[in-house]
């Protein structure tokens, strides 16, 4: 009887521990790869690169830096991020930088047009 109670307690503790460890107190993993970045962090990163591109006009460097995110194709990633940023109402300088980067990657869509410089 006593052994059965002990076994049940061990089992109960294991179940409780697994539930706690997976749901309530999940371990915060570090050393993660950029592919796992949250959408928000990824958007910030892409905006940073778009600003850098606006300053240096180095498309190859922008492509290299965006490849860091591990998501391909990069052009589509920038386009979808730009469209999301427009929907979410990001500030104008961010949207302009994103739209320009997307357009220079050859990725265009209707919502981007107002944020691009007018053609001469």
């Amino acid at each position, binding site marked *: 009887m*006593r052994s059965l*109670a*002990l*076994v049940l*307690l*061990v*089992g*109960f*503790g*294991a*179940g*409780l*521990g*697994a*539930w*706690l*460890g*997976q749901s309530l107190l*999940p*371990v*915060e*993993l*570090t*050393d*993660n*790869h*950029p592919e*796992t*970045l*949250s*959408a928000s*962090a990824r958007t*910030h*990163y892409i*905006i*940073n*690169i778009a*600003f*850098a591109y*606006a*300053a*240096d006009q*180095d*498309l*190859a*460097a*922008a*492509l*290299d*830096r965006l*490849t*860091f995110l591990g998501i*391909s*194709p*990069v*052009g589509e990633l920038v386009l979808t991020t730009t469209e999301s940023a427009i929907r979410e109402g990001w500030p104008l*300088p961010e949207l302009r930088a994103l739209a320009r980067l997307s357009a*220079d*990657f*050859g990725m265009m869509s209707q919502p981007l047009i107002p944020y691009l410089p007018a053609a001469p």
Partner: protein
Amino acid sequence: MTEHARIRPTETPRHFRWWPRQRPRFRPPTRLEILLGILALGIGLAAGLSYAWLLAPVPAVDTEPHQLHRLARAEYMVSILLRWAADEDWAAAIRSLEELEIGEDIPAAVAELACELVGRGYTQKGSGFRAIQQVVRFYQRAGASGCADVLGLPSGSAALVQITAPAPTALPTATSGATALPAPPSTTRAFQLSRLETHCEAATAGLIIVYVQEPDSRGIRGQRVRVSWEEGESFFVTGLHPGQDPGYGDFAMQRGRSYRVELPGQSAPSAALLARSCQARGRILLRSYHLTFRPAK
């Protein structure tokens, strides 16, 4: 009538009871039993937590920048500082760097990461070189210093992103294994069309396929290509097709149109490429053109 027949069916025999004659008395657990119980619960809990944290942790999704591995955090840091170089918003850069949790003393941590990046050959590309210059400019402005200092420009230089960096010399006092730095490659190189082929095959029908390559045939990613025709033009960039060579890019032609291809500002336009039909294995297809650009000699 027999003896048995007289017993009524609902009557319970006297010797049968549904309850025990005497209820067992509750015996309080001994100290040893309580201790064993706590120990068993603890062992179970430890096993469950070990399973959840070590053996089968919740897969990493939606991670924040501070949860990235060290080099990825350094890349993210560079992006923040490139943006700072573009908009000069110091407070925003500091806020973003704080979220990266690179250390209490942010400028010193930035200097350390810059040093690490230099040691790993980050500056071998011109873009990496210029990026590290911005990083150096950032931490030097905050009064920090590090082994990448040698890459910094004289104080007071402005618009760093637009100037060509001087060829650096060997690091005199490198502390993290950094070695002599190569000169950054020039940002504008002249290219020439080194090969032009026509093909007639279903897989590439109607495509202008462009390869931009180094002299040793390594593809060059991120090269802008201009395709022009009588009424318009289009641009594309090499390296955007997953699974293809980094120097690969393509463009779909329309039947009957004539196109010219060039690397804008870096090469002369190609001869006119006419989108016309060809025949392969009894099928009528649109021909394709394969162009290879390499640095001009």
